[in-house]
């Protein structure tokens, strides 16, 4: 059964090729069938392989062909299936399939229907290659492939200029991280002579002692790549603008799958980070700072999708924080739950925006809970999961685990814990601010048409998943279920809890629960009971509000530091300073050419005169010297 592994990325690739070559001649039904069907088949095969993997959970390698052979550099097209890639496969194919179904209705009126599905299929294929790759070069192929698809899909509505700029911004900013990662791969290859992930992970502890300089360098370079792709500080600026793409794209690429590629990369190469404790600590600090900064920005946004974008940055910050304290499986668990509920929230937001004539400003929505009951219900479940409402949501279990291990884990740190805890409070405030403003209060907008089944079904399924998946891993104090971490334990080592902290777990859970609920309470007080208060607070602190609204001014900072000097240099050097020298040579040569060409008059007597003058000159010079 596991031999079918190669089919999982092959189906979406075939779908993409068919749609690219013949999509413009296909009917919408046929294009949907090809686009969604190919991912559906992948999901089916993933399910079959998943069952086979559960009954025989040893890693499986599939060698397809040798990519290239240059001396001892022989990367192959080969897939490696283990528990970590299994979870990613599952999330990518299933969430991807649901989003494809949703898109068939969401994009129904769009001219580029087949093009949309072609890009989406290509994305799924690249993402699957990324998580299945058994060597880092193939992983890098998938890594760049998803970057390309992200660019194509952010700029999907390319007729509008700002969408094109957003796409370019996303592409260029992530490229900064990718360059760092490529250098990291070069160093790894130079040191070990291979890019095969499993051999790297085996050789690294023998070649490097803990804290080795090269390990540290590689760790930081890989972190650079992860930071770019996962929109973490300092390369987070592209993600809020990436919301220019259609909502299903935001759900699939910029929430559920692609932006977590950085988390996957670090988890995959966790051995290197364990050998470089400073790099690992940097991962945790990046996560903690990012989740706070993005959380504050999310508090002030008016655009529904931008709130969700900042929230995605913030939640990936949690995953980085977990990676930073060595809670590998907690990070992957949060990735999975986050994929479910954030895809749900984006799809819900997309549906709302669609029926309100592309209105993005949530303060112009209001009172939608009666008009759109199913969307309200599922959105509330997703929001509850995001805000980590205790006991009933998946988000609580995954985030609580991170909070607990940030303090109690061996590499835990009280500052990281406090940042995460405060972040949790902000998360629940901005989440329920969004819910209350959008669904409660007076109605400001008119709902144009009801939402169809193809869009509602994925919402319901994701709502169920984002709740039930949380019960795969329950803490000691509540049932003690460890299905998820047991499943991952052959790949990712479990984190050791400090012995002195063990008894306090219940207390920490109560704190986390109280913080989450009080955040909801504050949001309720501010946006339902006293709806005038937020604008008053906003007037009290206009500077701070603006700073948060523009995402702490990182865009302006990069604009001043990098973009403007670059544009200035480009403007100054428009005609290429060095080229001036060579054009000068040409000018001089042309001048002499013209002068000498003038003397060639065809008049023989002038030539004789020239000879005479020349002879006189020579004689004179000869006499003088």
């Amino acid at each position: 059964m596991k031999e079918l592994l190669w089919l999982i990325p092959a189906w979406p690739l075939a779908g993409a090729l068919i749609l690219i070559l013949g999509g413009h001649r296909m009917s919408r039904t046929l294009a949907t069938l090809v686009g969604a069907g190919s991912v559906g088949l992948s999901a089916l095969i993933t399910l079959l392989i998943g069952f086979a993997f559960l009954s025989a959970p040893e890693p499986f390698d599939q060698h397809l062909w040798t990519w290239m052979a240059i001396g001892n550099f022989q990367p192959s097209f080969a897939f490696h299936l283990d528990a970590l890639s299994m979870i990613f496969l599952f999330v990518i194919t299933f969430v991807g399939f649901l989003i494809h179904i949703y898109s068939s209705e969401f994009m129904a009126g769009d001219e580029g229907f087949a093009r949309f599905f072609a890009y989406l299929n290509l994305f799924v294929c690249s993402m699957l290659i990324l998580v299945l790759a058994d060597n880092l070069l193939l992983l890098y192929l998938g890594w760049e492939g998803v970057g390309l698809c992200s660019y194509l899909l952010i700029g999907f509505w390319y007729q509008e200029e700002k969408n094109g700029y957003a796409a370019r911004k996303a592409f260029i900013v992530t490229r900064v991280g990718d360059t760092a990662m490529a250098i990291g791969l070069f160093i790894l290859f130079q040191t070990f002579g291979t890019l095969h992930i499993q051999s790297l992970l085996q050789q690294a502890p023998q070649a490097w002692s803990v804290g080795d300089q090269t390990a540290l360098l590689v760790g930081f370079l890989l972190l650079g790549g992860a930071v770019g792709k996962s929109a973490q500080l300092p390369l987070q600026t592209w993600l809020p603008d990436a919301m220019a793409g259609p909502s299903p794209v935001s759900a699939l690429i910029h929430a559920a799958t692609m932006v977590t590629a950085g988390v996957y990369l670090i988890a995959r190469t966790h051995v290197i980070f364990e050998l470089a404790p400073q790099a690992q600590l940097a991962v945790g600090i990046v996560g903690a700072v990012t989740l706070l900064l993005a959380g504050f920005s999310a508090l002030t946004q008016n655009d529904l999708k931008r709130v969700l974008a900042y929230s995605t940055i913030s939640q990936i910050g949690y995953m980085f924080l977990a990676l930073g304290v060595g809670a590998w499986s907690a990070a992957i668990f949060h990735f999975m739950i986050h994929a479910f509920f954030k895809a749900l929230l984006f799809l819900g937001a997309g549906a709302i925006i669609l029926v309100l004539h592309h209105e993005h400003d949530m303060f112009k929505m209001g009172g939608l809970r009666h008009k759109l009951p199913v969307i309200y219900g599922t959105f509330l479940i997703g929001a509850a999961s995001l805000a980590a409402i205790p006991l009933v949501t998946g988000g609580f279990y995954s985030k609580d685990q991170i909070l607990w291990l940030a303090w109690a884990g061996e590499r835990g740190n009280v500052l990281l814990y406090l940042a995460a805890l405060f972040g949790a409070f902000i998360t629940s405030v901005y989440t329920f601010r969004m819910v209350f403003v959008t669904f409660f209060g007076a109605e400001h907008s008119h709902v144009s048409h009801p939402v169809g089944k193809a869009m509602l079904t994925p919402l319901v399924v994701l709502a169920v998943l984002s709740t039930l998946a949380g019960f795969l891993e329950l803490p000691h104090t509540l049932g003690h279920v460890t299905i998820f971490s047991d499943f991952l334990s052959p790949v990712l080592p479990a984190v050791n809890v400090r012995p002195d902290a063990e008894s306090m777990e219940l207390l920490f859970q109560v704190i986390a629960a109280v913080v989450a609920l009080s955040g909801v309470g504050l949001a309720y007080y501010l946006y339902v009971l006293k709806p005038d208060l937020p604008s008053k607070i906003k007037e009290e602190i206009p500077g701070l509000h603006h700073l948060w609204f523009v995402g702490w001014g990182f865009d302006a900072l990069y604009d001043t530091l990098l973009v403007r000097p670059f544009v200035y240099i480009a403007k100054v050097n428009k005609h290429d300073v060095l080229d001036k020298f060579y054009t000068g040579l040409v000018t001089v040569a042309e001048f002499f050419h013209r002068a000498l060409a003038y003397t060639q008059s065809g008049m023989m007597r002038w030539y004789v005169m020239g000879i005479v003058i020349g002879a006189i000159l020579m004689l004179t010079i000869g006499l003088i010297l």
Partner: protein
Amino acid sequence: METVPVESGLLLAGVLFMLGLISVLIRRNIIFMLISVEIMLNAAGLAFIVAGSRWAQADGQVMFIFILTMAAAEVSVGLALILQIYHQLKTLDGDMASKMKG
């Protein structure tokens, strides 16, 4: 035997050469230009003869015979060219034969 002083000989040669040169420059008739070139050649030959007699060497006269031979060859080629020019352009004006410039 009274010898002509070398200065007078060279002066005569120089004057002849200048006359030839000037008439090459100012004449437009190609036949006259050819004659003027002959004069310049003979002036050069005269200078060789004078120099040869001054140092009592045969080299001067040898060189003169060379120049004479060369002048004969030159005249035959030159006259052939002049015939062709006249045939093509129906004129003997040298300035008109400037079509091959540039």
